[in-house]
């Protein structure tokens, strides 16, 4: 079959990102031809500032080498400027006469620096700051001449000024506004920034505009301001903004309005022509940062691949100035004072003028809508995440300003200090990845997303507790180029749908098995992957109990064999001991089994039971038969144990019978699958010997009843459980805790512990559902009891129906 022809005009980051995404999902659909008017292959434009500052070289910032184009059978024309599109015959022409036919055309023509229309703007030595050529001119001029003027104190202007200063020039920045970076900073932060830059010997002239650029023999010599002041200048860099470059599209009759107008699928008014990047106007907005471009690229690629899925709905952006030694972060809407809309916004400000720290959060309707950080940007990524997620902040408002560390996360996540870390310090404790390795990978391999970093370095790919830290390192290494994940993340690469959308569709369409669900929701892959299949399987089972088909092959091995795989491929066997109470008889049986199967290690677990480690898979069924005890589910995303203290039967302090309640709970919720593991504890008095404060559901007996706590966690993220309510008796404990767990089972994302779920929905929501809505609580509890009805012990089932479980047998030849 003849392939379709795709022509890409624009060999920059946006266009090539589309091509990369397209090659991933539909590698054989198109013959691809790329035109770029620069003489280089695709390079990382956002790293031009470090190149100018001498921190990196051009070679360092090449993203796709010429070999990459060749390997992917892409025809690359560099140094060729396309000046005509013949839409009727579907051909593009370059200025030198080269032409290419297309079935689909992708325009990624980027933007141009806006050049002030003043006399002398065309003199030699007057340039923008956009491409490698501009950087070459700057470095070359710096070697020969002493004085430079930069017009515009935006991000680019300041980065240019800083670079030229490092290259040895005497630099003056002329800016029209009252303070620097007025689009990224408020006045206070802008003034602080100016002071730090003045300490680096940069000069600023504010509230001034350019009248004329003066030259001699066609070369710039000075800049004259409107008040008549004349500044000597051997080089003038105009950095007052960019304009989408849409002249080509406009000349071809494609609808443009301050940019190439595209819909949410990145299609222009000509259905064969798509456009991405800085050249487009999407819902009236043109973006000049790389993160939105990548989001556009992903969407565009799915449509070019004929999948017809994915919509681009606009982006919230954050920025960071790439000037070494200056920490600055801003995001969202942070206007204040004069000019800010009076619409109920509140501000929290922390300002330490001597210490050089300024932080401002703008809050509206209990959510962060904007943030400016200067001097200490440690929590930038955290604030930005909450901003994008629309997280309700009233519960943490008191501590918000003091950062994530102040929230009492005493676990591994406590060390969120990316900026303060040295290169040798370990970031990912699971995979032994240090900061230097991550920074090196980001720079050398051109990484832009958390997923890229996870894949290439393994940092954050195991327990995930360092993801926030990795995100900060990514943000601080890339500056404005950081492509933040959108808040509602897709389940995995097999789909664009997020967890909530998938759950909703399973409910709405009553999917009962994985193949139906995948085809109904237009999964990209024939049978998913190791990430989405277990999630789908859980969502089906939890939404349609007794009706959905459980697919063992979509479960992780532990849940398939009801034992916990160990590093050497053996398994561990943990029988249930309800409430952590055992008998001499049980212990004798366990001892006999351990002897019979020569179990290498017998260990008491943290969940008050006994672990037999190092068991061969082919021995599992025999061992279960000999044990004749139920499975402890110590391997599953399921109810684990109910830990108990001694309680009132023996303890001289105990006020309630905690062991009995623990046994009752463990029996009532036995065999329960969940988004992640679920742990309970019951203590008989506030001394809390069962550690109820760090369990998903923790119960503490008091003289007049039981206190209930939820969302605690003793694992990766140590989190103290929140008080939910106090109830009178054991029946109420079952009803309230059952309802809580059932709502978590129905609404949390797969692999969310209760702590993560509550962090997202808020304790208020949980209280409303479990406490205030009495009928809803009873109904949820009943749904849980219904889901668990008739469930059987998986070990006994396998002992009885050995023949249906052939996977435990090894084939010997």
């Amino acid at each position: 079959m003849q392939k379709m022809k795709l022509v890409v005009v624009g060999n920059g980051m946006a266009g090539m990102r589309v091509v990369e995404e397209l090659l991933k999902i539909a590698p054989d659909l198109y013959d691809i031809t790329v035109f770029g008017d620069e003489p280089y292959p695709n390079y990382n434009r956002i790293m031009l500032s470090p190149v100018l500052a001498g921190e990196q070289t051009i070679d360092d910032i090449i993203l796709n080498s010429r070999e990459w184009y060749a390997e992917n059978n892409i025809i690359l024309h560099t140094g060729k400027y396309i000046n005509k599109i013949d839409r009727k015959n579907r051909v593009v022409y370059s200025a030198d006469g080269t032409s290419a036919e297309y079935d689909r055309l992708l325009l990624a023509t980027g933007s141009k620096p806006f050049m002030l229309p003043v006399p002398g703007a065309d003199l030699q030595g007057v340039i923008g700051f956009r491409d490698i050529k501009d950087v070459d001119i700057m470095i070359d001029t710096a070697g020969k001449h002493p004085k430079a003027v930069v017009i515009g104190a935006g991000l680019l202007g300041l980065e240019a000024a800083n670079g030229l200063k490092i290259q040895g020039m005497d630099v003056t920045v002329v800016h029209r506004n009252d303070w620097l970076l007025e689009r990224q900073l408020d006045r206070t932060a802008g003034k602080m920034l100016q002071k730090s830059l003045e300490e680096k010997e940069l000069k600023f002239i504010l509230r001034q505009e350019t009248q004329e650029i003066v030259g001699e023999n066609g070369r710039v010599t000075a800049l004259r301001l409107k008040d008549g002041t004349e500044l000597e200048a051997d080089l003038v860099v105009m950095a007052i903004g960019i304009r989408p470059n849409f002249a080509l599209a406009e000349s071809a009759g494609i609808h443009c309005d301050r940019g190439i107008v595209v819909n949410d699928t990145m299609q222009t008014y000509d259905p064969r022509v798509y456009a991405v990047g800085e050249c487009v106007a999407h819902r009236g907005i043109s973006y000049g940062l790389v993160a939105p471009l990548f989001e556009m690229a992903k969407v565009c690629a799915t449509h070019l691949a004929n999948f017809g899925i994915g919509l681009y709905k606009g982006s919230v952006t954050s920025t960071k100035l790439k000037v070494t030694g200056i920490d600055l972060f801003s995001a969202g809407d942070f206007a204040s004072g004069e000019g800010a809309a009076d619409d109920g916004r509140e501000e929290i400000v922390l300002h330490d003028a001597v210490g050089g720290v300024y932080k401002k959060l703008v809050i509206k309707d209990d959510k962060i809508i904007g943030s400016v950080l200067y001097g200490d940007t440690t929590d930038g990524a955290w604030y930005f995440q909450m901003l994008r997620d629309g997280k309700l902040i009233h519960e943490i408002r008191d501590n918000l300003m003091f950062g994530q560390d102040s929230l009492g996360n005493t676990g591994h996540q406590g060390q969120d200090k990316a900026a303060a870390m040295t290169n040798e310090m370990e970031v990912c404790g699971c995979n032994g990845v240090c900061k230097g390795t991550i920074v090196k990978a980001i720079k050398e391999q051109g990484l832009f997303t958390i997923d890229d970093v996870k894949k290439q370095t393994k940092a954050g790919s195991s327990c995930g507790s360092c993801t926030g830290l990795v995100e900060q390192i990514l943000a601080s290494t890339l500056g404005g180029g950081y492509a933040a994940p959108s808040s509602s993340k897709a389940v995995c690469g097999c789909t664009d749908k997020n967890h909530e959308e998938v759950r909703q569709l399973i409910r709405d369409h009553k999917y009962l098995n994985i193949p139906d669900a995948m085809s109904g929701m237009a999964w990209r892959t024939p049978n998913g992957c190791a990430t989405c299949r277990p999630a789908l399987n859980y969502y089906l089972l939890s939404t349609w109990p007794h009706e959905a088909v459980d697919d063992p092959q979509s479960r992780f091995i532990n849940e398939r064999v009801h034992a916990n795989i160990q590093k050497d491929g053996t398994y561990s066997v943990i029988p249930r001991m309800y409430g952590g109470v055992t008998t001499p008889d049980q212990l004798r049986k366990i001892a006999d089994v351990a002897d019979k199967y020569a179990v290498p290690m017998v260990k008491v677990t943290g969940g008050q039971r006994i672990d037999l480690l190092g068991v061969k898979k082919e021995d599992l069924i025999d061992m279960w038969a000999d044990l004749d005890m139920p499975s402890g589910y110590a391997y599953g995303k399921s109810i684990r144990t109910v830990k108990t203290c001694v309680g009132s039967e023996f303890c001289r302090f105990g006020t309630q019978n905690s062991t009995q309640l623990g046994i009752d709970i463990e029996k009532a919720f036995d065999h329960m699958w969940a988004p992640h593991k679920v742990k309970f504890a019951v203590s008989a008095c506030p001394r809390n010997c069962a550690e109820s404060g760090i369990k998903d559901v923790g119960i503490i007996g008091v003289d007049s009843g039981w206190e209930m706590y939820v969302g605690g966690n003793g694992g990766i993220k140590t989190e103290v459980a929140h008080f939910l309510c106090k109830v009178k008796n054991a029946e109420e404990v079952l009803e309230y805790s059952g309802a809580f767990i059932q709502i978590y089972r129905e609404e949390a994302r797969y692999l969310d512990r209760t702590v993560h779920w509550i962090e997202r929905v808020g304790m208020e929501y949980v209280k409303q559902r479990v406490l205030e809505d009495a009928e809803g609580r009873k109904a949820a509890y009943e749904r849980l009891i219904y889901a668990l009805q008739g469930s059987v012990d998986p070990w006994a089932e396998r002992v009885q129906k050995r023949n249906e479980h052939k996977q435990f047998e090894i084939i010997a030849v």
Partner: protein
Amino acid sequence: MSTWTKITPLEDIPKLGSRVVRSSKGDIAVFRTADDKVFALHDKCPHKGGPLSQGIVYGDKVACPLHSWKIHLADGNAEEPDEGHTACFAVKVEDGTVYLEL
């Protein structure tokens, strides 16, 4: 000399699953994909020796149960950016029976 050895009826290997064959050449994982293609690999992940037979099979790949390395069933190579290789064995299905070349 290698010979074709009869292993098991195809139906005794679950779709998107595997069985382990214990041979003189070590444990061999025999996989069956959704479209009934059959592959055989040395049952040892190139990363830390995890039993690939216990992983989740999807497409023509398996995810190792220990640290989720993705291994291509057809050639035993680890999916990029990981690097590593696991030995492959020839395998065929005739009249619903799986044979392994040993």
